[in-house]
């Protein structure tokens, strides 16, 4: 019996597709192959590390993706990688999957984890990764009937998948109507944050003002995956999953005071809005972009709005306008092979800005994709 671990090569593609089909029981073309080159080949990076594959008796039995990213810590930009697409043939991989993770945690200067199954988190933690409570999910219900339909759809998709397709919005119109007064109070529908004067405008792309905003954002959050123009263009304009709405709060001088990237995804017959990014120059502008984003979500008619991660200040503002903790908290893990000063910052949850734009936590297709 022979085993081998080596970097992924393009010729491994057919074997990897087979593994993907076996693990997920679905066609890899739609969910996996479409984003492969974009995700692993074109993400802005200081350094690429290559994915790892493990073979047993010549057969590919495990894979670990290493999505290159740039982590800004204080005034430094560090090469890093999110560990993603952890696939293993449980019948044949033995402990090779564990070895892929172990090797990555030792050889990467900075390894990151965002999301993933609970068992994945356990593996990473035992092998030395530190997980932090910064992937908090906040939710605000906008239309209770649609929210009930979404909940029913999700429940049935887990318990009785064939029945999930039968969920219809109209079934929940009446119970939803009874919940409207309660939801209006609980989720503070009428509450708006006080702000100065900004012009809220949708943008077609990310111009050089976003580089300036990125610098300002780093003052608020000393640790983050770099949100400069090249990252934003790659993540939101070139992504196979788009489209996204880019919303900007512009001051009287035409400067970008804050910006958000918003998405809208389907949950069966319902729709869910999501803050993909929430970047700001100062807290007044943060309030303005939150107000503007909520208005945009209302205009879309989404049933609920989610915010995952973001900065501590953004989460505090969102709570003021009725967002409440809901859903599972995403794991965010760090394994740094760096100086103790930098590690100290990276292991402090309050220093971080993260969002669904990080890693491959949220690559689901948006409505209109």
């Amino acid at each position, binding site marked *: 019996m022979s085993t081998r671990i080596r970097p992924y090569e393009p010729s491994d593609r057919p074997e990897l597709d087979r593994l993907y089909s076996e693990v997920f029981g679905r066609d890899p073309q739609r969910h996996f192959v479409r984003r492969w080159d974009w995700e692993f080949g074109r993400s802005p990076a200081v350094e690429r590390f290559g994915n790892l594959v493990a073979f047993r008796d010549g057969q590919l039995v495990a894979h670990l993706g290493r999505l290159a990213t740039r982590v800004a810590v204080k005034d430094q930009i560090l090469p890093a990688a999110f560990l993603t697409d952890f696939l293993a043939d449980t019948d044949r*991989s*033995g*402990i090779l999957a*564990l*070895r892929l993770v*172990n090797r990555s945690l*030792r050889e990467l200067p900075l390894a990151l984890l965002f999301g993933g199954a609970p068992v994945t988190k356990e*593996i990473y933690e*035992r092998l*030395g990764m530190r997980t932090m409570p910064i992937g908090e999910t906040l939710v605000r219900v906008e239309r209770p009937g649609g929210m009930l339909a979404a909940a029913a759809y999700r429940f049935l998709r887990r318990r009785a998948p064939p029945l999930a397709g039968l969920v219809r919005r109209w079934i929940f119109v009446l119970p939803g109507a009874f919940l409207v007064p309660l939801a209006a109070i609980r989720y503070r529908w009428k509450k708006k944050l006080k702000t100065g004067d900004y012009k809220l405008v949708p943008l077609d792309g990310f111009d050089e003002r976003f580089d300036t905003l990125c610098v300002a954002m780093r003052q608020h959050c000393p640790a983050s995956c770099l949100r400069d123009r090249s990252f934003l263009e790659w993540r939101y304009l070139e992504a196979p999953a788009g489209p996204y709405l880019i919303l900007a709060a512009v001051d009287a001088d035409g400067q970008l005071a804050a910006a958000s990237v918003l998405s809208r995804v389907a949950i069966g017959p319902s729709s869910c809005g999501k803050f993909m990014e929430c970047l700001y120059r100062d807290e007044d502008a943060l309030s303005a972009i939150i107000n503007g984003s909520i208005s945009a979500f209302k205009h879309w008619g989404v049933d609920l709005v989610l915010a995952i991660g973001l900065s501590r200040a953004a989460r505090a503002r969102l709570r003021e306008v009725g967002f409440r903790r809901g859903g599972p908290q995403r794991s965010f893990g760090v394994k740094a092979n760096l100086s103790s000063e930098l590690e100290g910052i990276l292991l402090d949850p309050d220093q971080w800005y993260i969002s669904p734009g990080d890693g491959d936590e949220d690559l689901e297709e948006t409505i209109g994709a």
Partner: protein
Amino acid sequence: MDRIRGAARRAGGFVTSAELARLAAIVSAVLGIPEAESASASADDVCSWDSIAHLNLVMAVEQEFGVRFAAEDITELDSVFRIREALERGVKQLETP
């Protein structure tokens, strides 16, 4: 393979026959194989010895023997022989909370 953190070592430094029996019982329980076969078991030969089972086994051994294997060495403990070697060499006493 195993790292010794701190000065603490297991008394004697060698695994006794009673401890070997305890190890065999753990391996048998975690991997679902007969105790008699556990001494020669390795991740390459036992189908049920996958990544999750490996972590369960490592944690069970740690709990039973009051030791803590260094994170970077866990994947090297890929056979009962190697686990026994690690125990014999002495590993860090499990810190009690």
